[in-house]
């Protein structure tokens, strides 16, 4: 069911909009509502303490709030158990955890790892390091003219029985929504372990990890209304059980003797050291906020804004849009303007308080594939309104006037 979506009411929860900015960089990091910052502030002011060890009341409160986020996230992504929900600093750490703890154990010389040309550096570099260390090979699935993954080539690569397949649910640079469920099913049939980078998927499309069928799914809290420094790695329990810790030290142990150590149970085995307690509590509040809106409604709103922006930008002369049509993309639009470098456009937009991303979007292999050094990128979220898109169009026209 799609609820009615009141953007004006939503924006009232985000004090930053009182500054007058048009914020079109949510794929980079989202804004955070009062509910999130409030939950964090409440921790600092009312029950600031360390979790899992102290016997006094405020520490129990902190522990309960900290662990409550796990169940909220489990429900949001439909994991079977909170044991499968690991706190990380973000997507990058989640992928590195898998590359280190799973990859070092299972990837061997001559193995094949399949990635895609549109992946974020976070889902490329850890695998490159692992492949170099183990003598494994990496192949990249290419895109077609519309910026969509070439499924024929992907199927061909699967015939070579890759050990691992890793790809993003949604491209951060092009907005392409990959057919993740079909791709995971095909990769699993081919015997691969599958990691899905959900950095752009979880906040905007939502995910049901059991329906998706992947082995690992990593995402960041700060792109979904939460604070920086708190993210999630979902992993299938039997895989996580068989993996060694990523980091070691306090909190991830059961017993430590001079002869050796036994590790803590899931999920704490992967959570060494004092955790980002306030951030995890903030992430819980962000999940509450998104759950109250409903992911269907979030998707529908982003679709409406994306269609509106796609239309408005298409009308501008000398503007090139990259990636698929709005029906097949998330709320991300990458583009370039003839004769104007994206950095210059972003500087001019900034003069109008329009926050626009310019650069390679941590997807340099894709930029090389497209034959560009950089693009400008506008991205949207629950609070984006059409007026912000109109302001972007105004800034682009101003830039064209200056550079004419």
């Amino acid at each position, binding site marked *: 069911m799609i609820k009615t979506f009141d953007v004006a009411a939503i924006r009232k929860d985000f004090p930053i909009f009182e500054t007058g900015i048009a914020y079109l960089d949510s794929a980079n990091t989202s804004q955070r509502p009062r509910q999130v910052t409030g939950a964090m502030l409440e921790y600092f002011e009312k029950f600031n303490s360390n979790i899992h060890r102290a016997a006094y009341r405020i520490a129990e409160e902190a522990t309960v709030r900290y662990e409550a986020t796990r169940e909220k996230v489990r429900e949001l992504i439909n994991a079977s158990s909170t044991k499968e929900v690991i706190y990380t600093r973000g997507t990058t750490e989640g992928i590195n955890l898998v590359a280190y703890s799973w990859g070092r154990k299972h990837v061997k010389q001559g193995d094949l790892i399949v990635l895609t040309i549109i992946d974020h550096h976070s889902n490329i570099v850890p695998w490159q390091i692992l492949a170099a260390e183990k003598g494994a090979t990496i192949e990249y699935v290419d895109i077609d003219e519309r910026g969509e993954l070439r499924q024929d080539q992907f199927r061909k690569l699967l015939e070579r029985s890759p050990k691992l397949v890793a790809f993003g649910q949604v491209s951060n640079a092009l907005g392409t929504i990959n057919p993740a469920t079909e791709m995971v099913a095909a990769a699993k049939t081919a015997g691969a372990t599958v990691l899905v980078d959900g950095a752009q998927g979880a906040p905007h499309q939502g995910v049901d990890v059991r329906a998706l069928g992947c082995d690992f799914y990593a995402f960041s809290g700060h792109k979904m209304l939460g604070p920086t420094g708190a993210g999630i790695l979902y992993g299938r329990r039997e895989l996580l059980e068989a993996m060694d810790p990523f980091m070691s030290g306090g909190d991830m142990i059961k017993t430590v003797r001079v002869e050796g150590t036994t590790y803590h149970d899931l999920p704490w085995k992967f959570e060494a050291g004092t955790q980002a307690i306030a951030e995890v509590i903030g992430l819980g509040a962000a999940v509450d906020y998104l759950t109250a809106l409903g992911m269907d409604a979030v998707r529908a709103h982003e679709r409406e804004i994306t269609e509106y922006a796609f239309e408005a930008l298409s009308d501008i002369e000398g503007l090139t849009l990259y990636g698929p049509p709005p029906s097949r993309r998330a709320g991300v639009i990458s583009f370039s303007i003839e004769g104007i470098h994206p*950095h210059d456009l972003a500087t001019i937009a900034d003069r109008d308080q329009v926050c626009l991303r310019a650069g390679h979007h941590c997807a340099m292999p894709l930029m090389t594939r497209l034959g560009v050094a950089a693009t400008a990128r506008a991205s949207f979220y629950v609070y984006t309104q059409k007026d912000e898109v109109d302001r972007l169009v105004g800034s682009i026209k*101003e830039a064209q006037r200056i*550079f004419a």
Partner: protein
Amino acid sequence: MSSTAADDQFYREYILDHYKNPRNFGRLENPDISHEEDNPLCGDVIGMDFRVKDGVIEDIRFHGRGCAISQASASLLTERLKGLRLEDAKKIGKADVLGELGIDISPARIKCALLSLKVLKVGAYGLAGNDEDEE
């Protein structure tokens, strides 16, 4: 809510002129020094070719791609370098380049403005056989 005044101050006419009609743009055949640097933040690239005779920069060309700030900065720098003694060229610093641009450069864009200087420094010092810390 036009911001024309602010933009025109930033994208001054001569900067746009150097961007659209860059001076000394292209390549030299058999240069004595040739060096290229990129800005990893945005993937922009600038390279310079030098012909040096008796310690003097006799001819210079730059190539690459980038924003108005990096291109104008490179164009202005080549104008200044042509005919200069290499030893004197090495003395050119950040303040000189930013002064020549004559606009307020935000921290986010400072690397754009100084990319060509980095090419000069690493290139020129490379020929002299010395290491030079990056800016």
